[in-house]
């Protein structure tokens, strides 16, 4: 359980990016992390959309936390999440049609993200406005970072391009952009991320056994 001091906003953001990274540490929302990361642009845009929804949902739930009866908190969280996703979807379609053309498909998917519901339940429903907002920013940034890294490698190795621009001329490893390759990429990167953080941990506390 995350219980950080009310003023440690940097710590909250670091927590979301490293210690409780949605994909690499909590292993939540793996479905989108595999489905949309076969090119860099998609992965990045999805991350941005999630970041926005996560922050808005955390803020709303934090403000309403004393009003919601604990027995029906989950349906209410779902309602708030789908409300925000729908608002995002409709406003983008109206005011940013060009961006919506590229991101529209992903925005509706966000309703079903375990990571957003998990943060609502574990953090925002128990914390005040400001910490909840920064938790949302941290978790959203962590998700954005993870998707960007995964899609970077998948597009580079699977298609030989980045953001649609060709980079490598050799025949790419097609499997990496197919769903099976998504599991490989996420697994290998998750292993690498955890190995790195374990090594850091050891360096910081050399006396403590790993």
């Amino acid at each position: 359980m995350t219980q950080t001091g009310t003023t440690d906003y940097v710590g909250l953001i670091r927590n979301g990016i490293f210690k409780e990274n949605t994909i690499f540490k909590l292993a939540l929302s793996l479905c989108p992390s595999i489905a949309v990361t076969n090119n860099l642009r998609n992965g990045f845009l999805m991350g941005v959309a999630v970041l926005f929804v996560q922050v808005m949902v955390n803020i709303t739930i934090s403000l309403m936390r004393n009003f919601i009866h604990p027995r029906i908190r989950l349906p209410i969280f779902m309602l708030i999440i789908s409300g925000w996703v729908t608002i995002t979807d409709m406003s983008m379609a109206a005011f940013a049609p060009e961006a919506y053309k590229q991101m529209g498909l992903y925005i509706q998917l966000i309703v079903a993200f375990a990571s957003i519901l998990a943060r609502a339940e574990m953090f925002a429903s128990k914390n005040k406005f400001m910490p909840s907002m920064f938790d949302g920013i941290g978790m959203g940034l962590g998700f954005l970072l993870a998707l960007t890294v995964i899609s970077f490698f998948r597009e580079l190795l699977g298609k030989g391009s980045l953001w649609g621009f060709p980079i490598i001329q050799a025949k790419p490893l097609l499997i990496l952009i197919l769903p099976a390759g998504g599991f490989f990429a996420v697994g290998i990167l998750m292993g690498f991320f955890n190995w790195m953080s374990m090594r850091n941990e050891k360096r910081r506390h050399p006396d403590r056994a790993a």
Partner: protein
Amino acid sequence: MTGKDMLKITMNLVVVYLIGGLILAVVYAKTSPIMYRNAVVAKEAALRKLVPEADTIEKLGDWTVHEKHAEYFVAKKGDTVIGYIIQSFGKGYSSYINTLVAVDKDFKVRMISILGHAETPGLGDEIESDSFKNQFTDKDIDHLKVLKTETTEYVQAISGATISSRAVTEDAVRNGVDFLTKTVKGEGSDDADRHD
């Protein structure tokens, strides 16, 4: 559960649904006319892009495909007809794919354009890529067929998105071209020879 709990739960749900519903209604009321206008502008731009050398693009009529309303157009340069454009739908993996197909006056495909769809991000949405769409240029109705192997004679499926590729090629585009051939040709040669 006490009566007080039940009351509070009821109140919770009523309030959240009401406020949520109101907010969504307001957002929808504000955004839907803009969305509609955007769609009209996008369609006009797409039509222009498909036949850039045309002076006028006139609507010829309406038709229905997959129980959806669609339109078809004639593109003219001066007074000569240089081609036709038809809107068509194909049943894809997770949506109906809204497509515009431009043909020349011999009913060979000039270019296609995807107006809207909700196919799988990263796989099915590759139907919007130029490398897929460019395959349609100069294909007649007999060559609107999807193959999974490398081909230039037919249309090559997108890896991981065969259903979406087929929906565009063998459903939307082929039906559109078929309809145009029958309708427009039929009208043009009305007095010349009738086969039926």
